[in-house]
């Protein structure tokens, strides 16, 4: 049994979105504010029953409040009660709900007999909708109406004309206070035949909620949330928040699974015996120590007490033994320490935060697993009760990367699932399934996990006025089709480069190392607005950039591809110095097969700014004619690659570099030639196969303040397009006119 997918509706930014679950691990990735945490919270609030009270009015999708308030206004305006609409149906479009679809085999029917829709069901998908809805619409109506009218009458009674807003002004206002009095989570059985529909199905009228929470005994759900509350030795914070420390966790574990005084068995007797002996000895000692003082008290002979004898008896609780700061210590001596040496140990909280975090998380996972499998005393306790082992264990981890450096993150994500399955009844055994869901901001974690497990949360602009921006979830398993070379390439590439595409606002794909080093400086110095965005820079080369096309389009990520013209001969694939009118072609795959989809060199040079943009999402930037002053004359030149374009754009800087070495010297020599065509020829020659372009960029950074470098015109145009596009997008992400505050 496992969760196939969930449909979240009207929960914060997630107006309607489907999240498919992988069999083992599912990873939520996406830029900030894209809805990852909302999806986690929706799962937690709806599935973890103790957290159901945490839902609040701010969890409703903001843009829905207009409509909800409208329902209430209609109630109030309805004077003659003729067509008072108290149908629950009108609410269902606006209230938070989550559809859980589980895959169940026919042989497991005894687990789900209470939620199968009809006896004809033979196995497959089963759906349950959990809806946060009014308990009794009539009650809500009555309470709201009386509260609203009371407020209205009071404020009207005040004659001095000052308008005073009394609670409640709107339904939202009312529910801010009264939400849990009037709302509750109800469960409904869904029709499995409609599970493939694009939009969540509508429930038939008069559908009855299930009498009890349907997932008892089906799921065990555990959460490690982002606020783990580790204590620094110096931090003032203490108490409840610090209970994630190992000692606290060990205590809980001990209490649940090991405590010898509870349901003792043969092995516990020695321990109990020792505790008892210690107690007796301690009591005896106490009695002796207090003998004098107590006999003094006894001598008081207070009237009315027949025999005032005072007994002192201690209690030794094995649990209390773990209840102190130094319960867990870390031995910092080397392993080969001779016995008899004094052990040097430090209490747990002096350990590094990263290590504490890792230990805490892994131990939590161990604890969750052992609770689920009813290890030790937990098993004994339930042996006589009604509860059996749930077939599905869901573990949600929010941002495990906190305080962990990159390598540890990778270790964690590789091990986490194995830890959850490390039990003789689990492992490869299909009888019990574990599904691990992780939300993360870490590219290191994202790259350790198979592409198929990634779910990318995409921010979407508001569709129309008064509606809020929303989020969509992209399942990356289908991006590249199945097992094609492109998929393999993209996966390998993304893994090795550790790029952060999944968390970026926009991406720039560049041709080579020189661009990679210099483009960030161009952005920083010339496009300060762009610099404030989170931009991922990928060095991938024009011949492979187009392979990322499916990914970029799926992610909907604003992308600038800075590439090279790569002019080649009419019939051959030999590189040539770019010239017009010679039927030259371009050898660049991005230009030819992605954007702007041109093969001829002349057409590529003629392409205007609009031609180079595709679907307002991807723009290509490559060299074309550059106009410059050369030795006092206005000339044009067609650069062949980034380095010569850079040289031509900064002729004066390069002219002074004649004393440099390597490629820079060659460039300087070239631009000191008397005519532009000679210069271009020499530049082209210098940038032959064996030129050390990366070294040139390093040398340039070393000798020249990047502030002074002028970006080549094609790059400047590309970057300014991106700056405009991002500004535009940011506008779109805000709610248009009077739709409420931003989410």
């Amino acid at each position: 049994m496992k969760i196939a997918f969930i449909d979240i509706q009207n929960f914060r930014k997630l107006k309607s979105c489907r999240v498919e679950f992988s069999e083992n691990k599912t990873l939520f990735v996406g830029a900030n504010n894209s809805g990852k945490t909302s999806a986690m919270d929706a799962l937690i609030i709806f599935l973890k029953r103790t957290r159901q009270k945490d839902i609040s009015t701010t969890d409703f999708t903001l843009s829905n409040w207009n409509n909800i308030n409208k329902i209430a206004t209609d109630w109030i305006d309805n004077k003659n009660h003729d067509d008072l609409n108290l149908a629950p149906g009108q609410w269902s479009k606006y209230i938070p709900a989550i559809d859980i679809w589980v895959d169940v085999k026919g042989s497991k029917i005894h687990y789900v007999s209470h939620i199968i829709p009809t006896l004809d069901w033979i196995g497959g998908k089963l759906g349950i909708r959990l809806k946060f809805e009014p308990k009794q619409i009539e009650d809500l109506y009555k309470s709201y109406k009386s509260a609203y009218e009371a407020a209205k009458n009071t404020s009207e009674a005040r004659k001095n004309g000052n308008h005073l807003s009394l609670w409640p002004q709107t339904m939202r206002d009312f529910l801010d206070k009264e939400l849990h009095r009037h709302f509750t989570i109800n469960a409904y059985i869904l029709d499995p035949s409609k599970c493939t529909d694009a939009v969540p199905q509508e429930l038939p009228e008069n559908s009855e909620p299930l009498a009890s929470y349907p997932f008892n005994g089906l799921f065990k759900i555990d959460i490690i949330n982002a606020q783990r509350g580790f204590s620094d030795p110096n931090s003032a914070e203490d108490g409840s928040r610090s209970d994630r420390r190992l000692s606290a966790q060990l205590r809980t574990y001990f209490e649940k699974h090991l405590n010898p005084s509870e349901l003792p068995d043969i092995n516990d007797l020695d321990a109990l015996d020792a505790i008892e002996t210690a107690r007796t000895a301690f009591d005896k000692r106490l009695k002796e120590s207090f003998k004098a003082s107590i006999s003094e008290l006894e001598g008081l002979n207070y009237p009315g007490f027949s025999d005032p004898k005072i007994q002192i008896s201690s209690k030794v609780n094995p649990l209390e033994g773990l209840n102190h700061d130094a319960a867990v210590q870390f031995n910092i001596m080397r392993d080969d320490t001779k016995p008899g040496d004094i052990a040097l140990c430090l209490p747990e909280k002096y350990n590094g935060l990263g290590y504490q975090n890792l230990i805490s998380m892994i131990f939590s996972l161990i604890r969750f697993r052992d609770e689920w499998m009813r290890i030790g005393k937990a098993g004994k306790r339930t042996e006589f009760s009604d509860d059996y082992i749930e077939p599905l264990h869901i573990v949600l981890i929010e941002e495990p990367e906190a305080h962990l450096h990159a390598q540890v993150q990778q270790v964690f994500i590789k091990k986490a699932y194995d830890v959850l399955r490390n039990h003789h009844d689990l492992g490869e055994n299909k009888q019990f399934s574990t599904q691990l869901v992780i939300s993360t901001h870490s590219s290191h974690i994202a790259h350790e996990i198979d592409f198929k497990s990634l779910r990318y949360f995409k921010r979407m602009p508001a569709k129309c006025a008064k509606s809020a921006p929303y989020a969509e979830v992209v399942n990356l398993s289908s991006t590249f089709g199945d097992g094609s070379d492109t998929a393999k390439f993209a996966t390998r590439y993304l893994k090795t480069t550790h790029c952060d595409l999944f968390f970026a606002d926009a991406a720039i794909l560049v041709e080579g190392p020189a661009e990679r080093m210099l483009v960030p400086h161009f952005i920083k110095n010339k496009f300060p607005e762009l610099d404030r965005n989170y931009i991922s820079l990928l060095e991938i080369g024009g011949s492979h950039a187009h392979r990322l096309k499916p990914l970029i389009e799926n992610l909907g990520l604003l992308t600038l591809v800075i590439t090279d013209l790569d002019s080649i001969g009419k019939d051959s694939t030999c590189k040539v110095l770019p010239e017009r009118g010679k039927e030259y072609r371009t050898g660049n795959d991005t230009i030819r097969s992605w954007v702007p989809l041109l093969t001829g060199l002349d057409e590529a040079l003629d392409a205007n700014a609009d031609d180079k943009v595709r679907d307002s999402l991807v723009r290509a930037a490559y060299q074309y004619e550059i106009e410059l002053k050369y030795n006092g004359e206005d000339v044009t030149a067609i650069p062949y690659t980034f380095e010569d374009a850079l040289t031509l754009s900064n002729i004066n800087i390069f002219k002074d570099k004649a004393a440099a070495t390597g490629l820079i010297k060659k460039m300087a020599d070239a631009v000191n030639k008397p005519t532009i065509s000679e210069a271009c020829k020499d530049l082209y020659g210098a940038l032959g196969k064996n030129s050390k372009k990366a070294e040139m960029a390093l040398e340039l950074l070393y000798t020249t303040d990047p502030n002074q470098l002028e970006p080549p015109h094609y790059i400047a145009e590309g970057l300014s397009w991106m700056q405009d596009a991002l500004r535009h997008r940011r506008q779109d992400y805000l709610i248009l006119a009077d739709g409420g505050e931003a989410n």
Partner: protein
Amino acid sequence: MTIDYNVALSPVDEEIYRCLDLDNPKSFFLFAGAGSGKTRSLVEVLKRFRHENITRLRKNGQKVAIITYTNAACDEIKNRLEYDSAFHVSTIHRFTWELINPYTNDIRRWLTTNLEEEIADLREKQSKSRNTATKTYIDRERKIELKDRRLRILPDINHLNP
């Protein structure tokens, strides 16, 4: 519990116990006179069965169903099994009702077709009888009316009871 599982079952009980093998289950029929200890045998064997198999049952989310003829027998067995949750003791009617009870829609669908068939059947009989004044005819007419009414109110019923 204070049962000593090492005490051997009687040979008959032992034989019964061997039938209750989860990997190789066999049916058996036990008959004997009143008061000869049929229920006692059953209870002894079940206790032993629980002791040996409880972990496996719990892992698979399974229980042992015990079906009796009467509520009295049901209570008796529950009592003797110390109200253990691994056993589901019920009468045949209760057992089957619990199986179908959540499927209101299925029950409604069956009731609808069944009522329609019965009505059609009665109508056909009515059409054949020449005398409309006989008691049979009037009875049938009343039956049709009743069934018709049940059919009409069926869609509005949300909870069906046996």
